[in-house]
């Protein structure tokens, strides 16, 4: 094992985390796309690297005659000895990723079941708390609570509808799911997932602001609804307070972001090609680990 083994994973994980912490001054739509691409490729690369290291570690630990007999075992051994701490860490990461992904799948399935049990996604529900959400899917749509309809004036209601329609039109649930998957596979990417969710909300806010032509109105609507919305649930803890609503309102009271018609696609294309290249080299290495498992 050399440091080069870790290079692909580091090449993707470090920029992803850096972007989550210090976002580029680009439109949230481009930032969200960039983060989604980086998150998924970084997670895949990290898991592949962990698989390779874990496989090589196991091959080194197991009795030599069980491993070196078949051709594939020898390939892993040729990769060089893997220090025990690294091997154990890699295996632990794989286990955490597997459990996290299973939990995520379960949550996803439960969420979809809740949506289906409700029947149609769109509609007004008799709830006096002001709430609105975009329900994806063929029978999806915007779900509003009666409390929201009663609380908001027409202009503000239109802001909410446009915000939710932007989520549906741009398939934001796919981005959100990609980010959630990346964070489940490789938990250190959790900040990237959070940042991605924030950028998706910002994206929908900007779409709503462009449609109604009044950024202040969007900001006030968000502030008003969130102040009246029910507080966080029982499983919430202070560490989760990320001030997302506050930052959204601040951003809307600020100048509108540039649409980045050139920089956005260029950045995304460059990142896509680069991360695709890095990820594919890593996945090729990973074939070795797969061979061991087969």
């Amino acid at each position, binding site marked *: 094992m050399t440091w080069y083994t870790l290079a692909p994973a580091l090449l993707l994980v470090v920029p992803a985390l850096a972007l989550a912490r210090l976002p580029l001054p680009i439109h949230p739509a481009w930032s969200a796309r960039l983060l989604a691409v980086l998150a998924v490729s970084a997670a895949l690369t990290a898991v592949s690297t962990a698989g390779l290291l874990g496989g090589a570690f196991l091959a080194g630990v197991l009795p030599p005659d069980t491993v070196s007999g078949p051709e594939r075992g020898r390939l892993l051994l040729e990769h060089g000895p893997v220090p025990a701490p690294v091997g154990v860490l890699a295996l632990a990461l794989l286990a955490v990723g597997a459990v996290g992904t299973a939990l995520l799948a379960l949550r996803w399935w439960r969420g979809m079941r809740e949506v289906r049990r409700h029947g149609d996604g769109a509609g007004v529900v008799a709830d006096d708390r002001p709430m609105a959400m975009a329900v994806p899917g063929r029978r999806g749509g915007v779900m509003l*609570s009666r409390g929201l309809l009663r609380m908001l004036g027409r202009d503000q209601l239109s802001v*909410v509808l446009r915000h939710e329609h932007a989520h549906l039109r741009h398939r934001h649930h796919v981005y959100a*799911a990609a980010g959630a998957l990346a964070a489940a596979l490789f938990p250190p990417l959790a900040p990237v997932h959070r940042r991605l969710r924030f950028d998706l909300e910002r994206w929908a806010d900007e779409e709503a602001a462009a449609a109604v032509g009044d950024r202040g109105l969007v900001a006030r609507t968000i502030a008003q609804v*969130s102040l009246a919305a029910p507080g966080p649930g029982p499983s919430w803890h202070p560490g989760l307070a990320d001030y997302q609503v506050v930052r959204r309102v601040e951003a809307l009271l600020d100048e509108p972001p540039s649409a980045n018609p050139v920089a956005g696609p260029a950045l995304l294309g460059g990142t896509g090609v680069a991360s695709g290249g890095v990820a594919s080299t890593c996945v090729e290495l990973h074939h070795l680990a797969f061979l061991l498992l087969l």
Partner: protein
Amino acid sequence: MSRRRLGQLEAEVLAVLAETDGFLSTGELRERLDGDPAYTTVNTVLFRLYDKGMVERSQRGRAYVYRLTVDESGLAAERMFDHLRVASDPAGVLNQFVHGLSAEEAAALRAVLEREPSPDASPPPSGADAPRTPPRQGREGRPDGP
């Protein structure tokens, strides 16, 4: 009639229906809408909303009358919203407009709103319970786009 204008009307129609308890005919609805939209346009919007299950209709004489569909069972909504309240939907199935605020977040938000003078002299709501009956932002006849 652009998609965008239709979307705007959709929101306005929903808002008008939300203010009313009974059924409204297309004509009655049209009277309460700003900007005097065409009868057929309002009908189109109503049909789309009906298609989406957001309004229900019944027949009065020869015309249809509409009202907001409200899922009175409440149970489904309760489950839905409770699902969301747990760490704001980590699996990303749903996108919620806003999540509720913790006390610290609410304080920070009010600080931001106070710092920013409102452009049209409608002061931001203060106090968590105040915005339940807000002043309507009645900007009638706002020009739609350029």
